[in-house]
């Protein structure tokens, strides 16, 4: 499934385009483009004067369209306050983590120390755009353990779920919709979620690297390290790591936990 926001990036545009096209159907195409991006149109001449501008229609059209997209995105982006405050809240509450996040890069690392260990949690924003593979429903694999997980982890979700307060569809927190509804109802469930908070379901995988000074340094390795990969679809994450780890066999190539020696 494609993430819902990714779909939304396309949908409203076409609607807007349709509206403006129909309202000025008598205008010439070039003029329509200019009208559609009136703000952009006023800015284009400035760029012409300061740079070697391209004059071919395709470049100009693309540039104008991209400006349009940026404007729409920033207008639609009026609701990330929840996410921003949730992130801030987490970092305030968990000051042991430091974030390494470089603009323009898709990998993000969280780092902390635990005794003599160095812990790195790494994830990629590319996950946002990766649809869940067809037929890959991790929850199915979990049916046997369903009750255990509900009882063992719902408490945790309630108490630790503070970071999730901003979300309007609280149903996610205690019970993943996929667990509580029949398959036929899931689409409706997702639609409702989308209307409420725009949160899409996407699998987020996290690599956990734990390094310790070589205690067992028989083979000259100064560090021993453990790499674990956890995967979850976002709404399932409140059930968290155990469930995520249990997904691991669904991705044999990546979702592994392994011991390896740092050759450094």
């Amino acid at each position, binding site marked *: 499934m494609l993430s819902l926001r990714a779909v939304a990036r396309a949908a409203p545009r076409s609607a807007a385009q349709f509206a403006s096209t129909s309202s000025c159907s008598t205008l010439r195409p070039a003029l329509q483009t200019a009208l559609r991006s009136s703000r952009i149109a006023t800015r284009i001449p400035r760029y012409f004067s300061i740079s070697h501008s391209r004059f071919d229609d395709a470049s100009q059209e693309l540039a104008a369209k991209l400006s349009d997209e940026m404007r729409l995105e920033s207008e639609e982006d009026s609701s*990330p306050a929840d996410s921003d405050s949730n*992130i801030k809240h*987490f970092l305030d509450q*968990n000051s042991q983590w430091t974030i390494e996040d470089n603009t323009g890069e898709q990998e993000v690392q969280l780092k902390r120390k635990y005794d003599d260990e160095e812990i790195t949690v790494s994830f990629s*924003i590319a996950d946002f755009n990766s649809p869940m593979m067809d037929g890959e429903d991790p929850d199915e694999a979990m049916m046997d353990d369903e009750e255990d997980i509900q009882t063992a982890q719902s408490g945790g979700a309630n108490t630790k779920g503070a*970071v999730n307060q901003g979300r309007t569809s609280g149903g996610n927190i205690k019970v993943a919709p996929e667990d509580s509804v029949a398959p036929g109802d899931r689409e409706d469930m997702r639609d409702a979620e989308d209307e409420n908070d725009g949160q899409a379901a996407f699998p987020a995988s996290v690599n956990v690297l734990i390094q310790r000074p070589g205690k067992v340094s028989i083979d000259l390795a100064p560090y021993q390290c453990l790499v674990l990969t956890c995967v979850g679809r976002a709404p399932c994450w409140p059930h968290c790591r155990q469930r995520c780890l249990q997904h691991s066999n669904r991705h044999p190539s990546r979702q592994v936990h*392994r011991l390896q020696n740092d050759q450094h």
Partner: protein
Amino acid sequence: MTSTELLGHAPESLYAGPPFQQLDEDVQNLLGAYLDARGINTALALFVPEYIDVKEQKEYMGWLGRVKEFVE
């Protein structure tokens, strides 16, 4: 080796262990507790998708800007 190299470095030849849910149940639980002690917990699991969501939006805007700058 940096942590990035270590994480990106996954020789297929290394034995990766059995699928997690085939591990002894106690081993699974204790591994969970081990991670929990290190802050790999529910709060983190909630935080990560949220962070991805926000950063992806920022990067998307940046990407739009860079492509636009290039083509015009």
